[in-house]
């Protein structure tokens, strides 16, 4: 191969353009994910219709609150890094991660164990359990990936990788986090509020 093969292309992409492209790519990915969660919601309405299982309302409200508050903190982290405030960035990202983990504990650790639809607690309740586990499971998986992403971002930030002129990594993780949060805003009512509660529990 000629030396030409190893020289970078003519008319390379400027950093500003690269940033635009990265953002567009991320939004397209989220659009695709919207279809995934939309499909899951559609399945929920197809199978449950205007009913829902009895779930622990206090628990539901608490995990929802945690996720909503976490969105506030990740936004703070993003603003902080854009102002070169590394300490604040690390603190806010840390709180976000913590809230995310608490959410996971609440849903997977508590709700899954205690829900009256869990066969393990003697509450076999067919399709109500299946859809509940599927919806919360798929969402929890995304929360988990978000936590891992934030962990990487926090680590890189700790090493001084991000600053006011290089923050796209933080921004991307934050947008992804907001998205996962937004999905829950739709899932929460679909699971806990809409329709008539039927079956065992109270």
């Amino acid at each position, binding site marked *: *191969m000629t030396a*030409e*093969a*190893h*020289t*970078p*292309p*003519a*008319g*390379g*992409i400027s950093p500003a*353009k690269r940033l*635009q*492209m990265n953002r*567009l*790519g991320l939004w*397209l*990915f989220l*659009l*695709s*994910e*919207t*279809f*995934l969660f939309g*499909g*899951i919601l*559609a*399945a929920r309405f*197809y*199978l449950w219709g205007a009913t829902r299982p009895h779930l622990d309302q206090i628990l539901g409200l608490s995990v929802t609150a945690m996720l909503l508050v976490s969105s506030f903190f990740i936004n703070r982290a993003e603003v902080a890094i854009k102002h070169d405030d590394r300490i604040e960035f690390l603190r806010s990202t840390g709180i976000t991660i913590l809230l995310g983990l608490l959410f996971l504990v609440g849903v997977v650790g508590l709700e899954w164990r205690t829900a009256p639809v869990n066969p393990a607690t003697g509450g076999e309740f*067919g*399709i*109500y359990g*299946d*859809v509940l*586990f*599927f919806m919360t499971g798929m969402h929890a998986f995304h929360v988990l990936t978000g936590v891992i992403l934030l962990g*990487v971002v926090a*680590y*890189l930030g700790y*090493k001084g*990788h991000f600053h006011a002129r290089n923050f796209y990594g933080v921004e991307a993780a934050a947008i992804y986090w907001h998205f996962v949060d937004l999905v829950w805003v739709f899932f929460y009512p679909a699971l806990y509020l809409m329709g008539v509660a039927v079956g065992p529990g109270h």
Partner: protein
Amino acid sequence: MSRTSRMFLGFVVGFVAGAVLLTVMRALVGLSPLAAIPALSAGFTPFFNALAPLLSAGLLLGAVGLMLGLDPALGLARGLVGMAIGFVLGILLTHFVRLGLGLGWDAESAWVGGASLAPIGFLLGVGALSDWLKWTRGMHTPEQHGPPAGRPAWTRYFGFDQNHKVIGVQYTVTGILIMGVGGTLAMIFRTELAAVGRQFLSPDAFNTYISLHGIIMIASILLGIGGLANYLVPLMLGASDMAFPRLNGFAFWLTVPSAILIIMAIFFGGWDTGWTGYAPLSVRGPIGINFFMIGMFYFGFSSILGSLNLIVTTLKMRAPGMNLFRMPIFVWAILSTSLIQLTATQFIGLSFLMVVLERNLQMGFFNPAEGGNVILFQHLFWFYSHPAVYIFILPGLGIISELLPVFSRKPLFGYKWIALSSMAIALMGFLVWGHHMFAAGIEDALRVPFMYSTMLVAVPTGVKFFSWLGTVWRGKLFFPTPMLFVLAAIAVFLIGGLTGPPLATISTDLHLHDSYFVVGHFHATMFGGFVFPFFAALYFWFPKITGRMYNERLGQIHWALQTVGFYTMSLTMARAGLLGMRRRIVDYDPALGVEGMQLIVTIAGYIIFLGVLIGVYNLWISAKRGQVAAINPWGSRSPEWQIPSPIPEHNYAEPFEVVGDPYDYGLPGSVYVNMSPSRGAAASTPAH
């Protein structure tokens, strides 16, 4: 040790390892180690049954050994090793999780765990994740340019590479290989169907082969589209590469383990649901179904990422002066296809995931006894799979619109209409999925709306036909092989389009549903919409890609065999269907009177197969020995034809500028691109 003996040794070791591994694997699943894939049943059965799986597994791992012997650093070889490790880890992990939950060994969950991790092992092995993993440690990685340092140039085609042209070739070649596998399966079961009575296939084998044929062909179409799009879109836009080169390589290499998983299903009892994988049959069928569904899941993920990349490239990397309505029409087609692929694909992943969960975690989404609903599967499945049929054809229709003006020396008739009709088809494609379920017992109120929405899609499709006619009307036509394929594509797609409305009409569909009429219909749409245009594109861009010319005579023979064979095949299929021939059955009633037709279909199938073989031979031999081609043998106005062939690593030496409309063939003084704006020269329409 010489390279030859290393390759030989590698093959032998791999072969033995494969045979042993398979025996152990099958024993773990509880299948007798020697009994077979649902194999040929009569005659030499016992012998074949015992040997076929061992042979195939041996050959598979033998090939890995051979490659390792050839060059242990080859990405593909490392990927396969990584895949095997991923498999083992996945099996162990699943087993330990189960132990942790107080559950015992379960073969099916273990395999599902293995199959889920295997592609990740492959990607790590092939090196598709290396850069990203480095990023998580804060390292910077430069984009890779040119072949790997200090290694022969051909090796880049067998490893992780970031250049869009290399990736385009990788996609295309993989697609053709897989098409060969799917085609061979078709020849096998077509032979079985040639006469009444059971010849040599067991019903299980028959079901597995038709299912595998369907899904493999779909995979090959998606790969072929990936090939065309990756190669051509950056060139047509004047970009030096795709927007995200690493993601591009990642998406390609994800398809390889996915395809392997799908084919592996055959070793695990196969599967008997057809390509659609309808519940509840897919919930009750053999373990092989998991492999098919997990394979498709990853394949879909690759489609999503690939189309994301294409959309960003198209929207952000166009040459100066190229507004949306000066893009080549093929780019419009890819843009609309990518929009469907980006979004709808999630639904097939979702429906298959739910089946795998239902099988392995005892969920009941599709099980009425548990409060589930089987129709839900069909809704989810077709919400992807109907738009998917437009994924298959839009790029091909784009190729037709792209090539017709070149070979007619006339402007494309109604450029804007064509561009927008692709978008319209893409969007309307989301509203018609119910037409696959007229006979399935969907809600009555939904049937008529779906009938009308389906009929409506014929409108933008008709727009394309009129535009093609308007383009060739009074043109100065000439007929090299690519043009022959384009014209045949139009003629064949016409059958597909005409057989659609009777299927969309509820009253007639109740008779035609699940009959050979449907089979004739969709083969005509896919051959007219993809296979013919695909070959047209291969012949057309061949001189640009390889720098050599294909053999015209062989090209014409390929075309003649494929066209005649195909017309005969699909029309006869449709007729057999009208007379009551069901699809997906291994045998049929002689009283239907379709035996003669079945024989004709089989023979026509052989003819098509032969034609394609000749075509592939032509491309293969000409790439090595063909005549050196001129830079622009077709007199095309498109920018990629104005630069040397094969195209340099970074495409254009300097950015070009778009100053006119793309298809103004024959208009004196019209200019599309100004190849070297800095020097002020303008390349006007080449004379032909």
